[in-house]
């Protein structure tokens, strides 16, 4: 039995590696073949004005306290439903930024890089918010750290959206109206 153990482990590792290789290649081809319209069609509507208020209150606060109350921030973001939508939209926005590379490789790559950094902050906030969901649902209270994560998520999303729209306005102005409408 133990004589076969290395072979069994090798077989499992190789099977996992082949599965990961096949899956990643399919995913890459799927991303490349998705039409722009399909991707934009997948964007979910959010209350951008409300998100902008949360983002600007967070980004422009400086030394002064935040003007929005916790309940207002929660409602403006749209609760956990809104957080999920922001996360899903962020992934699609990154792919839409990569699209620009076909027409303007340097601009698309540079702005895409900036958006990726925003997406990292957004994902970190969403992860922490998911961990605090039980506490928020059961006790109905938003701790300071949860509030901070909500604001950071909204600010990161707002910055990403703004960057993407500006990129399309400069590089592919023909598609800008449709994207602005969808976002």
């Amino acid at each position, binding site marked *: 039995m133990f004589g076969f153990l*290395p*072979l069994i*482990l*090798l*077989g499992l*590792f*190789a099977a996992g*590696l*082949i599965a*990961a*290789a*096949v899956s*990643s*290649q399919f*995913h*890459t*081809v799927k*991303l*490349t073949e998705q039409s722009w319209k399909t991707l934009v069609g997948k964007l979910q509507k959010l209350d951008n004005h409300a998100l902008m208020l949360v983002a600007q209150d*967070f*980004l422009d606060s400086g030394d002064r306290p935040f003007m929005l109350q916790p309940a207002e921030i929660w409602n403006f973001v749209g609760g956990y439903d809104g957080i999920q939508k922001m996360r899903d939209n962020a*992934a699609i926005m*990154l*792919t839409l*930024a*990569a*699209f620009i*590379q*076909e*027409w*303007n*490789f*340097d*601009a*698309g*790559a*540079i*702005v*895409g*890089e*900036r*958006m*990726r*950094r*925003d*997406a*990292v*902050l957004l994902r970190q906030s969403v992860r922490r918010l998911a961990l605090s969901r039980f506490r928020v649902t059961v006790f109905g209270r938003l701790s300071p750290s949860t509030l901070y994560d909500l604001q*950071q998520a909204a*600010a*990161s999303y707002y*910055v990403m959206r703004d*960057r993407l729209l*500006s990129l399309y306005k*400069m*590089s592919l102005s023909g598609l800008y109206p449709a994207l602005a409408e969808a976002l």
Partner: protein
Amino acid sequence: MALSALDQLLWAANFSCFVALLCVLIYRQRWKEIPVFTTLIAYDVAKTIALFLAFRTGSRHLYAAIYWSAAYLDFCLQLGVVIEMARIVLRPTGTWVQDAKKQFVFWGSAGAAVAAVLAWAVSPPSARALERWEMRGNLFTVLVICELVTVITITSNKLGLGWRSHVMALGQGLAAWSMVAVAVEVLHSYFGKVRAFLPLEHVLMVASLGTLGYWMVRLWQEEPVRQPISSDLQAYILALHRRVRYDVRRITN
């Protein structure tokens, strides 16, 4: 040493495909985009000629000497091709995309370590130690190449990076070939050179033919033309970078 008609046919077909691919790379000037890959193909052409001439002399020692000295350089060049792919995909603007280098190095090293341990641990059935180490070496090589190509693909998908079509073709071909090679070498580790060795080698050679053919077609085709960045857009992007640094500092402080 006697080769069957099938062996000779596959060997000749592989050599012809290597030569044809090299011609495509030179004629269509793809060697400027992927110089290390072009070097690998040129090396494979030269290696095949050398091995064939050694085979015709009938000297096992000469054949073995060329085979073993070529194997090490072959692996280094394959590794070079993978690194070349990583540099093109994960460094679109000339610098590594955030987290890309860290992920590539971490997962690449972890995978190579696991491959080394597994290759060392298995004991392919063979009376000769040199044959066992040859099979372990081949197994390690294909595991590392397959794993590195997968790491590059997964990293680029997670970071939302686009692939240029020629590099994508390179990655897809290398991924497909290495998956078949992993399966073949795992079976070699079980059967050794006693059973099913030649049929498995034929499978690998057919996979190699398919990959070479795919590369010939894809690398012959042109990529979409990229527009140069205008000075207005460049100024806008620089201003955007300054604003981004300010925003990120505000968010993280």
